[in-house]
């Protein structure tokens, strides 16, 4: 009897695995970061759906464009990095501050106990990407084009994602007492960092966003669009009260980049 039950569980698991493989295949055909698209392009996904149609209309009133990111579990980190670096291209002051912070971040992570040995490759590539959008080196159009190319090259894009995951993990460790409050059950920050933050493809939740935003001192506004009532999207700023520089849209399970009007 027990064996029979196990067999059933195994079959379910096989089907789930196959499902995941199919999803992965679909997602691999979507670019890591898309070109800018008009916000109302979302309508095509929700034809005849009154709730979403009204929310897209609300969104269109505040935002002109969006950029899709590949739904591979890394979308928050990739969208965040792209959107913030794009902001820095035309903000020399913020750029200089961020570059300095980036330079110093490696030593900080090493102090927190991350192995400098594996860390340095990711830090090096991350800084290389930051340097390639230096506003003093070229005009914004050329730099934007460069940024787009870099982020669609997995060799760079994924290295940036890893480094942001490590920065997030570092922040969780640094302020473990605070972040522990967000985790229910008998799980330590340590376990959470190793299982939900550092591995690639693990999806981000509020806790990841708050930790990364505070680690980098960057404000993010997330517009939530789900089946909830009200007909409008709901904005949430991280950390609360900080002027957002990065704008993202969240639909259950996925983040894309938004451009305010």
């Amino acid at each position, binding site marked *: 009897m027990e064996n029979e039950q196990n067999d059933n569980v195994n079959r379910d698991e096989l089907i789930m*695995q196959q499902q995941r493989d199919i999803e992965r295949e679909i997602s691999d055909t979507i670019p890591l970061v898309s070109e800018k698209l008009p916000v109302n392009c979302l309508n095509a996904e929700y034809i005849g759906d009154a709730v979403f149609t009204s929310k897209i209309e609300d969104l269109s009133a505040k935002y002109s464009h969006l950029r899709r990111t590949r739904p591979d579990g890394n979308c928050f980190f990739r969208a965040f990095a792209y959107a913030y670096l794009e902001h820095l291209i035309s903000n020399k002051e913020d750029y200089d501050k961020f570059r300095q912070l980036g330079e110093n971040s490696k030593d900080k992570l090493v102090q927190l106990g991350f192995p400098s040995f594996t860390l340095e490759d990711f830090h090096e590539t991350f800084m290389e990407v930051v340097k390639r959008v230096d506003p003093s080196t070229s005009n914004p159009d050329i730099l934007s084009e460069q940024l787009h190319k870099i982020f669609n*090259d997995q060799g760079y894009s994924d290295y940036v994602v*890893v480094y942001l995951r490590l920065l997030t993990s570092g922040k969780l460790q640094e302020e473990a007492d605070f972040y522990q409050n*967000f985790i*229910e059950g008998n799980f330590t920050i340590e376990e*959470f960092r190793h*299982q939900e933050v550092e591995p690639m493809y693990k999806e981000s*939740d509020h806790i990841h966003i708050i930790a990364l935003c505070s680690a980098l001192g960057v404000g993010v506004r997330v517009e939530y669009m789900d089946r909830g009532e009200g007909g409008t999207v709901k904005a949430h700023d991280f950390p609360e009260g900080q002027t957002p520089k990065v704008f993202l849209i969240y639909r259950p399970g996925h983040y894309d980049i938004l451009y305010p009007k």
Partner: protein
Amino acid sequence: MSKIVKLFKNNKKDKPPKAEIITEQKEPEPIPTTKCGKPLVLDNTRWEKRLQKELMSLIKEPPPGVSVDEDSVTRNLSQWKINITGFEGTLYEGENFQLLFKFNHKYPFDSPEVTFIGNNIPVHPHVYSNGHICLSILTEDWSPALSVQSVCLSIASMLSSCREKKRPPDNTLYVNTCNKNPKKTKWWYHDDSV
């Protein structure tokens, strides 16, 4: 946050493992290419650079009880044999084991495939008699910031903390039916009986 909580509640690690076979899939192409068919040259050189770096460090400053079989690596950079000795004061004191690490071109984004090989496979509740190891950092929880060294340390600590030498409860079934590659096994790190 509810998703996380649920995930953690299902993830109790110290219960006996249960393994399950995933249907055989097509082997990945040996040389990764981008969607437009262009080889990812950058990744290939980085992959080698990273392995070389790890190798140098492991030879120069090996963790206690761990040594690389340098001949094996000279022959093929993508397959390393690593010797590991049971620590004093543990059930495996004085025993010698050998691990085989296989790397693909997506390393360190893909985890290495790690198995015990040779005549002496440790008798341990998380090690199958064919050398497959049930350890979450080798699949689900792998991160590119981990390394050969950190995997060796985790395996050493897994052996050291063992209180009773025994095989996993589903050893016979698993060994008879599993894929050669342990990464094709869906590992259950929680107890299924709950």
